[in-house]
């Protein structure tokens, strides 16, 4: 018995010449198509859209008006402090959609369908992460809009806000690898949510997103908050938006982003290869 080439049967368009590999350009196109798919999913799923649209607005309103007065005596002053922190918090929460979507694809069998196609192996991941960046921009826009409506003004000018956005997107890119690992490891999408929030809530709330680190009276806790990468990133974003020290927190943030990527990208890729 010999294995001979199967010629495409008559009447089929399968006679097109076969390629032996995916060109990087095609890989990018495929990633863009898969990112498009994720954006279309959101359009069909108003629940998800409202989830990451209402949440940023709600948090800004909640913290400004309910806690703002108690934390800083004046909600207007607190608004200026908390909006940059909100950018950071929402960025972290939005990265969890990568885990959610990835896990849903894996458990529902969509991933097998994609992998059976002659597409670049990395394009499903790249597509997810690219779509996540669209969600990030939307979420940043909503926080900024809500803030501006309430009276928030970037003291360092709008260009500062643009720089902050770029830094946030870069950090989101790095943090997406954590999300990818969670998405690949969790047994089902519900567990992604539980895992994501038990991990994200402590690192976001035990930071200077909502309160200045100086207000913490317990020494070790204050030390932790000052060195928490979430605080460092918030410092950088605050500096860019309102002026103040920018260089040190920005460089430290970028180092953190690099460290997170160096740890989690290989872990995720290894899990990805083993899993699929």
């Amino acid at each position, binding site marked *: 018995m010999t294995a001979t080439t*199967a010629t495409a049967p008559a009447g089929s368009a399968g006679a097109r010449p076969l390629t032996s590999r995916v060109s990087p350009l095609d890989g990018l196109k495929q990633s863009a198509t898969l990112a498009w798919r994720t954006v279309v999913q959101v359009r069909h799923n108003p629940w998800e859209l409202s989830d990451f649209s209402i949440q940023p607005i709600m948090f800004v309103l909640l913290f400004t008006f309910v806690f703002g007065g108690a934390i800083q005596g004046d909600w207007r002053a607190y608004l200026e402090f908390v909006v940059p922190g909100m950018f950071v918090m929402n960025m972290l929460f939005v990265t969890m959609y990568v885990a959610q979507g990835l896990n849903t694809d894996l458990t529902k069998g*969509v991933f097998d369908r994609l992998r059976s196609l002659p597409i670049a192996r990395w394009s499903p991941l790249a597509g997810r992460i690219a779509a996540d960046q669209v969600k990030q921009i939307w979420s940043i826009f909503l926080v900024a809009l809500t803030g501006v409506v309430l009276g928030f003004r970037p003291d360092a000018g709008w260009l500062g806000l643009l720089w902050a956005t770029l830094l946030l997107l870069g950090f989101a890119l790095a943090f997406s690898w954590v999300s990818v690992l969670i998405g690949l490891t969790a047994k089902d999408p519900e567990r992604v949510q539980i895992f994501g929030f038990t991990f994200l809530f402590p690192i976001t709330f035990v930071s200077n997103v909502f309160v200045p680190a100086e207000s913490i009276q317990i020494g070790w806790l204050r030390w932790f908050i000052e060195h928490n990468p979430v605080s460092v990133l918030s410092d950088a974003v605050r500096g860019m938006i309102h002026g103040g020290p920018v260089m040190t927190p920005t460089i430290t943030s970028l180092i953190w982003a690099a460290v997170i990527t160096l740890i989690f990208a290989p872990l995720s890729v290894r899990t990805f290869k083993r899993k699929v």
Partner: protein
Amino acid sequence: MDHAIWAEGLVKHFGETKALNGVDLSVRTGTVLGLLGPNGAGKTTAVRILATLLRPDAGRAVVGGFDVQREAHQVRQLVGLTGQYASVDEQLTGTENLLLIGRLLGMSRSAARARAKQLLNQFELSDAAGRAAKTYSGGMRRRLDLAASLVGEPPLLYLDEPTTGLDPRARNELWELIRGLVAGGTTVLLTTQYLEEADELADEIVVIDHGKVIATGTPDELKAKTGAQTLAVRPADPAELQVVVSVVGELAAATPDVQGGLVTAQIGDPQVLPAVVRRLDDAGVVVTELALRTSSLNEVFLSLTGRGVEEEDVQDEPADQAVQTEGSRA
């Protein structure tokens, strides 16, 4: 002979589970091979290896002339995959799902749109084209699944349990569609737990169990080999059970099975029935039940392996069982 799929000595273990334990397969171009077996037999694992989704621990497989491991990209260009494990996106509409595949296959926007429209028409999904796939019925879902695997007009099609969980009407509709594709020249690898399905569609059947091939042949050969029909006899007086067993055992091809006063045996020749009646009459045995029925998958397995598959495994939990055993690679 021109083989579209050819595999030799495929082995795949998931921890302790030996999903495949040395499987040989070959499918001639333009024919349908039915891979028949109970849940957990290794059917899905075999399909996943042949679709380049899984690497075998040992063995070799060639699809369309390309090695599934070294030339996976070429294989992917030849194969369309449909099954419980290769699904459409529930949140996208029918059109969007097909558009997505078309674009991923490198079609232009307009070509992908035209192809999607054509497939939706062909599969009678035009009315539901703009609705999210999660609103589809089971039969519509499978039709969309099948359409999605056909976007690139692949010369080879893998159907992994395409009708499991469908009602008889939807099953018949899907069979018709598959027959149409085969008539168009597509080579099909079909896995199923239903003997009837393999019988309806396959040119050749490979029966696997516990990761091993236990029988190969055309449906007719297999029936002849396993006994196409089952004879069931129940004596009025349980004391005469032994007489019935010896009469049936003498005339039937296989050793009879006794369960709660009912004697059953595989028979290859329908002439056995009148012969059994005559012999029992001569012996003065009164029977309350006498029947000749088509063998169930269970009985085919019984005669092939000497043991049955649990009925509930085959009929009641089509998907879950397989997910646990074959999907435990995660």
